[in-house]
């Protein structure tokens, strides 16, 4: 328990320092970090499913994209921003339930395959209904939350912090314990009287809620929604790599991994095409040599002599 306490203080200290950042750095850096924080939420929401419920969701962007496009489309229809964000989150949860209900019946890799197919379906739907969605060019959103880089930064940081505390708290709660048991050994969890499907479905909904919220907030920051930024498989892969890199089953690690990936990609931008290659190679090495992720490794080292 004392370990958790000291970690908590460390995280709080880091948050205070990050919150003070707009006083010291340029708008460009704030912009990069704002994007990174939304990615942090994507990865944390994904870790709840993979790390705790034991289900590999290869389509985090199905949930993110639903939230982003639902919010964006309703905004073009004239809805105010807060309602659009709520509707985006709701759309992600609804889509998530429709997907998970049949998919959770399947065992092993089939759940993952279904989530992967769902992303392709969403992507195709967006392209086919280009008249409404903007297709491959993307959807331009009439409103933005703010034009001030600092305000956008604080919103993203605050959102990530709140999401992180909620998801972390949930993972550490009795419900999180049941979820872990369901993920690790569904037979034993059922024999203890737990409805495994119910708990996994709930986890999927919560993951969808945070993914959808983050997706909706992101489009109101960027001012556009496009397949390349919120739906493409490559975006989903980045979310997954971030979570694995940071540390499975840690929640916090997923956010750290996402921030690292976005910053690294930006820092290496002068390398052009090579930057993606370098970032991917670093991620690959980290996963090969630290399969528990960076945060997982630090925690693990502390426990076993």
């Amino acid at each position, binding site marked *: 328990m004392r370990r958790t306490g000291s970690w908590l203080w460390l995280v709080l200290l880091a948050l205070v320092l990050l919150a003070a950042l707009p006083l010291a750095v340029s708008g460009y850096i704030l912009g990069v970090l704002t994007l990174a924080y939304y990615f942090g939420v994507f990865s944390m929401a994904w870790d709840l499913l993979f790390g705790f419920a034991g289900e590999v969701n290869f389509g985090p962007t199905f949930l993110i994209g639903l939230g982003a496009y639902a919010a964006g489309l309703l905004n073009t229809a004239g809805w105010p921003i807060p309602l659009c964000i709520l509707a985006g989150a709701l759309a992600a949860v609804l889509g998530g339930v429709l997907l998970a209900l049949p998919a959770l019946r399947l065992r092993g890799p089939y759940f993952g395959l279904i989530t992967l197919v769902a992303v392709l379906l969403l992507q195709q739907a967006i392209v086919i209904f280009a008249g409404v969605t903007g297709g491959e060019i993307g959807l331009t959103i009439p409103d933005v939350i703010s034009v001030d880089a600092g305000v956008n930064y604080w919103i993203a940081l605050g959102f990530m912090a709140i999401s992180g505390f909620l998801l972390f708290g949930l993972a550490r709660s009795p419900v999180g*314990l049941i979820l872990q048991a369901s993920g690790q050994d569904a037979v034993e969890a*059922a*024999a203890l009287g737990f409805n495994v499907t119910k708990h996994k479905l709930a986890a999927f909904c919560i993951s969808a809620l945070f993914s959808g919220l983050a997706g909706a907030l992101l489009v109101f920051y960027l001012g556009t929604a496009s397949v390349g930024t919120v739906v493409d498989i490559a975006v989903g892969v980045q979310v997954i790599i971030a979570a694995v890199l940071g540390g499975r089953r840690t929640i916090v690690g997923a956010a750290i991994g996402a921030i690292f990936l976005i910053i690294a990609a930006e820092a290496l931008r002068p390398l052009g095409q090579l930057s993606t290659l370098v970032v991917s190679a670093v991620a690959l090495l980290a996963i090969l040599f630290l399969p528990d992720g960076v945060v997982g490794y630090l925690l693990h080292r502390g426990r076993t002599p």
Partner: protein
Amino acid sequence: MSNTPWLDVQGLSKRFGGLVAVKELALSIHPGEILGLIGPNGSGKSTAMKLIMGIERPNAGAIRLGGVDVAGWPAHRIARQGVGIVFQHSRPLHRQTMLENIMLALLPDSLWRLRADRALIARAHAIGERVGLGAVLHRYPNTLPFADLRRLEMAKAIARDPKLVLVDEPFAGLTAAEVGTFSRLIDGFRAEGRAVLLVDHNVKSVAALVDRVLAMYLGERIAEGSAEAVMRDPVVRRVYIGGAIETQVRTADAAHPAAPLLQVEDVTVFYAKAQALQQVSLEVREGEFVSVVGLNGAGKTTLFNAISGLLAYEGRVLWRERPLAGRSAAAIARGGIVQCPESRELFGALSVRENLDLGGQHQPPGESRDRLAWLLDLFPILKTRATQAAATLSGGEQQMLAIARALMMNPQLLILDEPTLGLAPVILEQLSKALHLLRETTSISVLLGEQNVTFALPHADRVYVLEHARIVWQGAPARFAVEAGAGYL
């Protein structure tokens, strides 16, 4: 004991494809009664237990719990109806402490329980104390011995206050002292008026505890009654005992020892801080059959894995007088040292035939065909199972397949790690015959690791006793009983 049974099973049947696992089974248990459900491997006893728990769905029949028919219900609803199960293999949450693992079992199946209250923590403590985990409640499962993990399983089962407790192989892998503790715990269930079902291989291990025994064979009930009556039952005796296992003294020339094949010299292995092997030395000569006997945890598997190149060690292992250090596990296996591991490691989704063919990959086609024919003669059951997926075989058949696959690799030294683990006597006898044939008709040397001394001794030319990571005795099997037998258990 009341007059109406709490569990009442009628006409229960379960088929897996063409295999009838349970056929028209009827059984009942009263509150405060312990029923032993026994049968050799593949008899359907484990399936029967899974059907009652709802882990498998029956094809036909009724399972009444206090009058409610729960046949076909999902496991979590049957659990809430008052059924708890103690699994044979414990699978705790490793990032949680023992206490948190017990708390898990106490939680309601709710999505809104976000804090564990004091009462729940106190109850988890009390249950932990009751099963003897009081001193280790704040430790993590992977730092604790096997017996404590079994206690944890027991704690989780009783946390739900079940009216019916199913216990799968209550004493497997436990020492005599631990068996006493677990017997008292199970006896406590009876005193509290719970109905208990003990599932085990044989009557002997549960005889002292049970009120009644039901023996199964090939999915059907073959006998029921008191432990003594079932033990005397002629059908049960035939199923279990078959022919007696005899000791065989090799007629070969003992005065001229063959060349050494494998020499293990002062091998030491550490797992983190724990010493798993301490300066172990042994030798296997050409054509010899050597047994290493020792209890679970003595270090047998570690020794074999060191020889097979699966883990790092200090000391030397020589194969035909050349050191093996630095060679990969695959190279060592191709070189003639083939291990048939305790966990069998079959390819479950592949058929029996495919598993065997994989073992013969490195042999010339003609030779591999001959070996296959010879092995199907040695284990005829594999012939009838040739197209079946390995995972669907019974435990005994899987063990035979694992040995046959190892033999397909044309070993000069076959390492058999605990081949009898979890197998019924009738299967042991078949295995024993196969080993006898192997010793008499081939030049293959065998290094056998066993807990079961009566199985390990008859074929052995020499015996080593491994205890707490060290070799404590070695000699001829005939001298074992006098010199080492008393201290073995």
